[in-house]
């Protein structure tokens, strides 16, 4: 699905202008390139190239930038750094444990500057900053893997953003445009609550799958295609018989994207 840069011109009769539009000679024109959204009479244009505007319930992948008193600052590709409060994380010892001053002093042992985490948006502050929480076993610190940064508007909103792909790797599609690709974990380490990670070397076959997925996701994002598990899987299958490093060459990328588009249309039609 490509986004064209045509000027969307609509008559003003019985419509209300939303964000991303302006009036030009009694015609409603889009001021940004993006997708038109229509809610009853309200017409707005959601731009393609934008910072992440978080909503409650979004899954994000972020990087810790600061460790402050009782909270961490997380970079999530939004206008302001998001906040992860100490009371919003799962500490070892169970959920109902009271946060003591020892916990505050030991914050850096759990999450340091530079660590990657997956979290969910709990609420939005008045100034627009997001408040995150990792109060579930599927969220927490991320271990070995590869991060791919794409535009947030390319991530399709789905019921779940954690996928164990059939090709042999797992991905987390953060709504903020950060996609985390990692080897599928063989057994869950439940007691630690997601803070202990594996340092064993990842086998070569897994790493090949991860590299191929990374290049496919970059190819999809360069052609402005929506990212979700099916589109990523189709592009992986089209790219399977090419060499991993060739996927990013323009001619081969075109081929792969054409085939992915065709298969998606077939599946929908």
């Amino acid at each position: 699905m490509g986004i064209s840069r045509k000027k969307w011109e609509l008559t003003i009769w019985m419509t209300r202008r939303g964000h991303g539009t302006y009036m030009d000679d009694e015609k409603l024109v889009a001021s940004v390139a993006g997708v038109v959204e229509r809610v009853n009479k309200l017409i707005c244009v959601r731009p393609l190239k934008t910072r992440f505007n978080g909503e409650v319930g979004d899954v994000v992948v972020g990087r810790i930038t600061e460790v402050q008193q009782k909270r961490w600052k997380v970079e999530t590709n939004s206008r302001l750094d998001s906040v992860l409060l100490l009371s919003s994380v799962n500490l070892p010892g169970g959920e109902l444990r009271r946060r003591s001053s020892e916990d505050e002093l030991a914050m850096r042992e759990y999450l340091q500057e530079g660590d990657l985490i997956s979290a969910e948006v709990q609420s939005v502050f008045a100034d627009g900053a997001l408040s995150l929480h990792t109060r579930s076993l599927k969220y927490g610190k991320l271990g070995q893997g590869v991060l791919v940064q794409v535009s947030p508007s390319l991530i399709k909103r789905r019921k779940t953003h954690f996928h164990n792909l059939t090709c042999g790797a797992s991905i987390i599609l953060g709504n903020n445009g950060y996609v985390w690709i990692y080897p599928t974990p063989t057994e869950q380490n439940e007691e630690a609550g997601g803070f202990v990670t594996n340092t064993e070397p990842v086998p070569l076959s897994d790493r090949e799958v991860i590299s191929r997925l990374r290049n496919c996701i970059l190819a999809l994002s360069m052609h402005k295609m929506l990212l979700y598990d099916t589109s990523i899987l189709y592009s992986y299958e089209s790219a399977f018989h090419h060499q991993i490093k060739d996927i990013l060459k323009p001619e081969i990328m075109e081929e792969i994207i054409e085939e992915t588009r065709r298969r998606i249309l077939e599946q929908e039609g």
Partner: protein
Amino acid sequence: YLHVALLFWQQVILCHCTLDDLRVDGRSCEDYRYVEVETDVVSNTSGSARVKLGHTDILVGIKAEIGRPKLDRPNKGCLEFFVDCSANATPEFEGRGGEELGTEIANALYRVYDNERSVDLKSLCITPMEHCWILYTDVLLLQCDGNLFDAISLAIKAALLTPSKIPKVQMMEDEEGTTEIELSDDPFDCVRLNTENVPCIVTLCKIGQRHVVDATLQEKACSVASLLVSVTSKGTITCVRKIGGGSLDPESIYEMIETGKRVGKALHAPLQDILNKEESLGKSREKVGFIG
């Protein structure tokens, strides 16, 4: 260089990747990314080239001016380099932020290119001790994505290889004793520089136990030290320089130089082919430029 915060585990996976010769984007340790070269993009220069290596974007323009030769080299021309780190490349280059990097790159370029072995400087001389051609080379960094030196050297070589519009001149002395410059009437009567010895720079970054060619910003953040090797098309090494704060073992330096020689020698032939193809298209070539 630019500050990229990297998770400890990402460093671990990168080190393991180099051990198995499979980097994050699927390349082997000696593979370059996709390179685009276009020449003659700036119309009022003697030679220009634009190189895109991954997301690194470099624009080089060479202007030939007549000037006085240097005192220690009276019968040779010279090259002058100026590197401009544009603020478009990254916010860190705002204002005077890019000056340090620019001078570092310019100094390395002087070492590599401004000597008799790389460029035939004698052909740039007009009158010994009086007049010579000075090639003012301006390098503009439009976008930074790692591996600046390699891209800059490719661009300089491409700009020098294009039919540089250095006209043939003759100095005439008239009755009053002042010298006059006489240009030939034919606008296409140009001096073409002998560029068979112009080297290409290969940057090798040490990551873990091995070294990689053409490192991205993430890989550069994991490496402690890098080695710059400039290699001619015949495989001769003209300059070796270490950059970065970490230490390198002498054995690994030797290995890195060998790799640099191999990779650098292989760079020249494809570049020459592409430039020959471009030249043969002549006026009918579609110029992509900056908008396309």
